[in-house]
């Protein structure tokens, strides 16, 4: 929109600020003892990620990140944590035995190695999609949402509908669990 020469510096600076913020918040998220503070650090991570999306010109994904994760899912999560008033961190740890811990650690190392390999590989090899699909390139209408909505409701309709079935299963599960036992 505006022509200027400061964009690269501006982007680099903001990238490092928010990338560091995201890393720091996610570190705090996994190390906090109190579930409420952990949840809040996760919200902070979501925000930093949303900023990074916006800086990649993916405003829609960035806004959705805030709307869905920070605005809806985390609020419900916080709500549950407060209602149950979980206090003892050892009681609600997912993994309490040494075997699963080893597996989790191995998976973590694998993931880190994968990321580092990707980061050191040349740029062309990193791109999963080398050419822009025709449906994205031609989707002009609908402003900035069009290029997302177009392929979602044409090419990837099956995946989209399957996701909605997943949500339906979750809703039915919630209703069954909440049903009063006579």
């Amino acid at each position: 929109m505006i022509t200027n020469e400061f964009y690269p510096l501006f982007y680099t600076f903001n990238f490092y600020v928010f990338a560091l913020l995201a890393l720091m918040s996610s570190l705090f998220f996994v190390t906090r003892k109190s579930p409420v503070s952990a949840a809040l650090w996760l919200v902070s991570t979501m925000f930093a990620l949303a900023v990074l999306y916006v800086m990649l010109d993916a405003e829609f994904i960035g806004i959705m990140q805030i709307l869905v994760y920070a605005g809806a899912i985390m609020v419900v999560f916080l709500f549950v944590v407060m209602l149950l008033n979980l206090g003892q961190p050892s009681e609600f740890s997912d993994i309490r035995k040494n075997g699963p811990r080893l597996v989790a650690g191995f998976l973590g190392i694998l993931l880190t190695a994968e990321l580092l390999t990707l980061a050191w590989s040349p740029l062309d090899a990193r791109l999963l999609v080398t050419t822009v699909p025709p449906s994205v390139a031609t989707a002009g209408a609908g402003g900035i949402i069009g290029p997302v909505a177009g392929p979602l409701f044409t090419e990837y309709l099956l995946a989209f509908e399957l996701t909605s079935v997943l949500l339906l299963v979750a809703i039915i599960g919630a209703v069954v669990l909440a049903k009063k036992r006579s």
Partner: protein
Amino acid sequence: MHLIPSLLQAVVEPLPVSTGIFVVFSLLKLIVIFTIYMVGIAYSTFAERRISAWIQDRHGPNRVGPWGLFQVLADGVKNFMKEETYPGEANTVLFVLAPALAFVPAMITWAVIPFAAPWGSPWGRIDMVVADLPVGFLFTLAISSLGVYGLTLAGWASNNKYALLGGLRASAQMISYEIALGMATVCVLLVSGNAHLTEIIQQQSTSGWNVLILSVACFIFLVASFAETNRVPFDLPEAEAELIAGYHTEYSAMKFSMFPISEYANMITAGAMISTLFFGGWDIPFTHWDNIPPYTGLKVLATFGMFAAKVMFFMFFFIWIRWTLPRFRYDQLMSLGWKFMLPSALAYVTVVASTILGLDAAGIARGSWAYLGIMLALNLVLVVLMFFVLDRGRIISPASSRLNRRQVNQLKAVAPALSDLSGKGV
């Protein structure tokens, strides 16, 4: 009421402005908006007290300064001078953070709301919006969904059972009504075909305000706004008869004052959102003078005045309702939200979407007289259905549901003195 495509184009693609001018004017807009907003919030508290006094036939604050206008300053000084208390065993960090978290989202929303017509300055076009985001509309939804954190955390961090109950009520209520609110705004997206607030206003200025062609969505949005701002009749989170003061029971001095401030901030923001989405934003009705170039300074001032007038009307409306209606019961609040607002919003989205699809298939252009007439007629029918057929004291207003004849007879059998009930509200 006709489409002006070239005008639309002019607004969507602004002329390039140099970086320096952009930064300077962005800063200026920030300062001006922030100042007006803060003063507006301060005087909303004064307006509330004077209007409530007027409704209740008393004087209200009128001692400090002419007509009591400096009451706001006196209140501010008082709040800053008071002692700050911290409850024992409270989570101090979150306890201090919560009032700010309640206030900040309401303020951030203003970044994307266009408040006046653009200004064709000597340095290029200056849009009268701080950040002209292409997804501005979704941004407002995302940010307004964060307001719940402040109230919930205030309730939790206070380490007080009443505060916790208030916080839980706040989050349950805001989550429930947010869904109806979002569903109501889907219709606006359907009609405008865009999430850019500037374009939504342009579309309304050329083809009629959305309140005319989306009346039911406007009504649902308005009611959900009351719930989102925790105003009467939905002020359950701070119901003083049950919860002392709800989530801000443990707060004192300025930290307490931040909660009423955030409530007024949310009211102004909600008023601005209703104006923007359904009442044409800064558009002046019955004229196209404000929608066509050249965009002079006078037009900027006039359209800003129009926008401020609309927001102030909704502020008055919020206050008016507060001093008119009683509070809902909690189960009534939930059943209204989930059993009436959400299904009717969903049904309305379906009806509007199929109507627009049908009109498009029939070759009736968007914004033409035929299109507007059909949409208007459809809404009239739906409004009549909603208020006079569906609601007979059962769905919309369960709190004021009247007795039927059988119940009146039962009452009369128990207490003959109640015989004057007969004939009323049957």
